[in-house]
């Protein structure tokens, strides 16, 4: 032990030690990224399984069908008649049908404003009170009038009505069933769930006139197509990358894939060959969606309230009819009805590779953590370095003897240099304070002003480092290498801290930001090598937050041929911030952007040697 300590202490003073961190950081990044690519292999992912035994998915006979199809057709005619009608008229009709079934009906108005647009509407919901139960628990069946793409939920609405009529006949429900009809897929459900938990802003969202018990689960149906289908697509991403309990997805999987014999797809992988390539693609798509943190369907708003929810979307051409998806919902509801406890057994943090393979948090988290740790390692290294006397790398005066030069070159490691903290702290703080500007701008401007604002901001953000750098250089107390080291150290320390905490909440976002900002670890002030400087600048500007946002908005989406366009992306981001409370903009503008500014400032830095400074002063 003592020897070990002694050797460790001597190692501390070893100048070679300070050469190590960049390689260690690089190793962290490489291992982190490679780790991620290993996950789809059989050895690292696991087959899914049902943890909560009470669910018993696919163990019951489902009886939905027969003459219920006649009722469905009738309700479909009613829905078709309402296709062009206004929200209120639609709700009037739905309410009359629901009341005719003997359900309790409530309505709720909401108005959100985002990017200068007003999103308002009226939710209608009907409560089927558990025949023998008390109002302690409830499960929700959501049908949005329009799905995320804006298509009319032409088969979904009548199917939910038919199911309501069918469920009413059963006496076995232990929980209330709430049928929720919302005018759109994001704002409506959000308003309803907020109000259900009394977490709403009553000036924008009305309170609910009628309530039931604690929500135990929710299924949303997005069934816009009118023809027969082949498989069902499970959408499970919640707001801010939160996910529903894996047991819920597994139950739907069991009921749809096992009992009903239809295919199940996730993450818009319409065809999945269980190969490494497909698994990786599924996982990366999932990570991208999780990282963006946007609401992906009516179910998304439920998840932040610890209500597990998924959206079912039938797709593909096959022979399954509406009754089949009705039976899937029936089977899933029977499973949820069995629940004695809130879903808690299975995983809440996972990456799905295919419908029945997943990676749990213990396996994937090191990947993002390693990427985040590289910043911390470098930050510590720079801190240590800043505490040591500077090395005069270039010795210009040849008059000095070799001995003298050696003396200067190998500084006495036992002498600690006092750190000048004020300037670096101010610079990093200014970067972070400035980050409020884009956050405020992009979430409060009106839609038409968004693109000009973004262009203007991009230009300013590109110029800002030069301005800052000039300011640092020309100011009366010019900046030393130590101070540049400290600027980088603080900035990287913050980045590492934020990203490693974020990794536990939203793994994908932390990983993506970590990878994009990885060059920040390696850039240094290089006043004497213009090539290196230009190279670093190019890399940093290519991977700047503004460039990434711009490129991402014009790149084609997952299933589209063309990108959404910058205006649309900014509008969506503002909408997500205002309505669903997505915090991705905070991470981009308040974590990544300041770190990037600090990085570019240090690349542009023209540090003065401490000696020079003294001379100047003298």
């Amino acid at each position, binding site marked *: *032990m*003592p020897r070990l*300590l002694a050797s460790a202490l001597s190692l501390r003073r070893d100048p070679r030690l300070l050469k190590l961190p960049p390689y260690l950081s690089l190793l962290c990044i490489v291992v982190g990224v490679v780790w991620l690519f290993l996950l789809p292999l059989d050895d690292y992912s696991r087959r899914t399984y049902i943890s909560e035994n009470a669910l018993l998915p696919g163990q019951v006979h489902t*009886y*939905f*069908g*027969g*003459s*219920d*199809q*006649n*009722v469905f*057709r*009738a*309700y479909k*005619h*009613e829905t078709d008649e309402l296709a062009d009608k206004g929200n209120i008229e639609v709700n009037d009709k739905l309410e009359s049908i629901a009341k*005719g079934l*003997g359900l*309790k009906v409530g309505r709720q108005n909401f108005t959100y404003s985002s990017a200068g647009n007003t999103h308002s509407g009226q939710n209608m919901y009907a409560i089927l*009170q558990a*025949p*023998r*139960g*008390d*109002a*302690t*628990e409830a499960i929700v069946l959501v049908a949005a009038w329009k799905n995320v793409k804006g298509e009319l939920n032409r088969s979904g609405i009548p199917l939910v009505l038919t199911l309501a*009529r*069918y469920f009413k*006949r*059963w*006496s076995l429900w232990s929980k209330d069933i709430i049928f929720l009809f919302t005018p759109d897929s994001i704002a409506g459900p959000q308003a309803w769930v907020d109000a259900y*938990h*009394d*977490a709403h802003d*009553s000036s924008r969202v009305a309170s609910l006139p*009628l*309530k*039931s*018990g*604690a929500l135990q689960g929710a299924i949303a149906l997005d069934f816009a197509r009118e023809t027969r289908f082949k498989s069902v697509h499970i959408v499970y991403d919640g707001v801010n990358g939160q996910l529903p309990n894996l047991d819920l997805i597994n139950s739907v999987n069991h009921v749809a894939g096992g009992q009903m014999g239809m295919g199940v797809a996730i993450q818009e992988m319409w065809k999945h060959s269980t190969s490494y390539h497909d698994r990786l693609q599924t996982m990366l798509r999932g990570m991208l969606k999780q990282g963006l943190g946007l609401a992906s369907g009516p179910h998304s708003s439920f998840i932040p*309230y*610890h209500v597990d929810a998924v959206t079912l979307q039938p797709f593909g051409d096959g022979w399954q009819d509406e009754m089949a998806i009705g039976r899937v919902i029936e089977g899933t509801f029977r499973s949820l009805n069995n629940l*004695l*406890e*809130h879903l*808690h057994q299975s995983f809440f943090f996972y990456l799905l590779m295919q419908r029945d393979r997943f990676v749990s948090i213990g396996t994937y988290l090191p990947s993002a953590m390693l990427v985040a740790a590289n910043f911390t390692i470098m930050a510590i290294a720079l801190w240590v370095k800043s505490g040591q006397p500077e090395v005069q790398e270039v010795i210009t005066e040849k008059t000095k003897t070799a001995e003298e030069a050696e003396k200067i070159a190998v500084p006495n490691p036992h002498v600690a240099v006092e750190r000048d903290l004020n300037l670096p702290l101010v610079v990093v703080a200014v970067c972070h304070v400035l980050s409020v500007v884009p956050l405020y701008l992009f979430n409060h401007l009106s839609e038409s002003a968004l693109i000009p604002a973004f262009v203007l901001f991009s230009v300013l953000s590109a110029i800002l480092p030069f301005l800052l750098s000039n300011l640092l250089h020309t100011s009366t107390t010019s900046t030393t290498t130590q101070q540049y080291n400290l600027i980088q150290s603080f900035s990287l320390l913050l980045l590492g801290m934020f990203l490693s905490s974020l990794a536990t909440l939203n793994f994908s976002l932390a990983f993506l930001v970590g990878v994009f900002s990885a060059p920040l670890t390696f850039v240094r002030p290089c006043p004497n090598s213009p090539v290196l400087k230009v190279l670093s600048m190019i890399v940093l500007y290519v991977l700047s937050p503004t460039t990434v946002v711009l490129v991402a908005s014009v790149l084609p989406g997952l299933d589209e041929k063309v990108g959404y366009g910058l205006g649309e992306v900014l509008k969506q981001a503002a909408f997500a911030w205002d309505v669903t409370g997505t915090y991705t903009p905070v991470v981009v503008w308040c974590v990544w952007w300041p770190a990037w500014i600090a990085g570019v400032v240090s690349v542009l830095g023209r540090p003065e040697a401490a000696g020079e400074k003294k001379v100047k002063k003298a």
Partner: protein
Amino acid sequence: MRRFFPSFLLSLLSLLCFSPYAVVANPSTTSADSTSVSDSRSDYHEQLILRPLPLSALLASFNFRSNTSLSAFEAHNFRFFPRSLGQILQHAGTRELHLRFSLGRWDAESWGARPWNGAREGGTGVEMWAWLEAETDEEADHKWLTLTNALSGLFCASLNFIDSTRTTRPVMSFQPEGNHIDANATNMHLLYGVLPHEVVCTENLTPFLKLLPCKGKAGIASLLDGHKLFDSSWQTMAIDIRPVCPEDGECVLQIEQSIDMVLDIDRSKRPRDNPIPRPPPAHEMKCNTSKPYNAHDTCFPADSAANQDWSISQIFGRPIKGACPLTDPTVSPVCIQVPDSRVVFASEGAIEKKNPDQTSRCFDFPAENDFEIFLPAPDGSVEVVVDQLVNKPETPLLYAERSFTGHGQERGGVQTILRNPSPDQEVEFIYMESLPWFMRIYLHTISVRVDGQPGKADDSLIHEVYYRPAVDRARGTQLEVRMTVPPASTVFLTYDFEKSILRYTEYPPDANRGFDVAAAIITILNKDQSVGNSRFAAYNLRTTTLLCNLPTPDFSMPYNVIIFTSTAIALAFGGMFNILVRRFVAANEGPENGLKKGVNKLKAKLAGVLKKTKKGGDKKQGSIFAAAEEVTTEKTE
């Protein structure tokens, strides 16, 4: 159903000869309210009141009442009063007892006012309150414990779980129903306990029926069957024991047992061997033919709730097996509350008595024959107004709905929405909550807000608050609020609470389900108490129970934490301790260590062993000699 209807009717006709529109004989007391204060001298009577409700529901109120004179009771002379219960009451010094077993919820919006004005019902689960005779609080607690434990055995319910944390002593909400000579004396203790999570089922019904004089073999009790009772949308079983002293005559001890249930007619009519509600064949569906798209494969369902036909044996699975021979013949055993315009068929030998109020009629029938009632569906061709089929439900004095607000595992809130439907009468009532100790309420957050005046708390509506704070693990919170709701307005009563963290072992096996919070009890005060009306409460209602989610640990976590912390402490402590107690010296100064030291030790040992084996023989002899010498010295001394 429609297809089978004629054959069913024929078979009924052949079995029983119907006597529609029998002459009004004797309009006796039949409505729910008037029976409760009827003749207290008759020893036993029973009555079933059937009231069809809107949305194809049927309320069946069973009421059984028997009396025994106090002197006979004290002399252990039981006739109609159940001996098992009587002895428990005597043993525990109980003066008045109320016991409730309830399930489901009353849908006041569609069914209107509650039966018995809510006086015979409890919140979900088991509820019980009693006036005990005791000198001190401790004695009362002891007697309460005796009583709950004895009743727990008698009714197969977990009443013994009503411990001090679930017991409260309400101050304002309850008044004795019976006539007590010393009603306000200090030796009368009111204790109230509630078990919201208790599931009421058949095992509670059987002992209930055993207390009846006719046991469930004859009379209206023969309809009580666990399958039907516990399939109802709402049901409550009540036992009330109270002393009643008529103005002229001896005091009697009265036991009143009642069962109220709301049956879903559709569901009850399903045959027991085929209870699955499969979709009916398409040609049996009732369709709304006025829709333009109506076709053989498209059917907009017509409102099926309107025209329902039913009979007692369809609903309950069997007819009434004759009247109970012990019952008071002056009280009709079966009454049905439908408008006089509706046709009601009864079996042969029954006498129909119509009430003058045109909304109800009663039937007397002999003990020998089965009794059956059949209500045919009105003419399907005409659009029938619901009012002609069922009596218009009475509007209750108050609607109440309680729910949780907020989310998360740290804090929460309770919001009760109280709506007064009356256009001109304000409602004064007592709102009582008995909350578990782990819901710590913030009393200062209690506020009342009238709907339509957002953000403005109106504390003038609260007149009186009685609050007894919880003590951790010892007693629950008790909150009683006397307040009013102005006419035709909705009032929000809200308060916040904090969720406490339980100890690891205090969680139930299904910890993630949440914890049931008992129903709030709302007692609407009787305004004209002076006018000879001795009833304290005009109307009672209970909210639904709530499910409170407490912070629940992942129960595999403690194990992980223990292992992790132990490892961390072992490493940290071990290293630190080592560094602290070790003295560091230069290698050459210190004692020899390592391999060299071991080798030296081994050498020394080997040398020792060699020496020993050499000397082995002599040593043995020597020792013997030594022992002998010792012995000799002892002897010489």
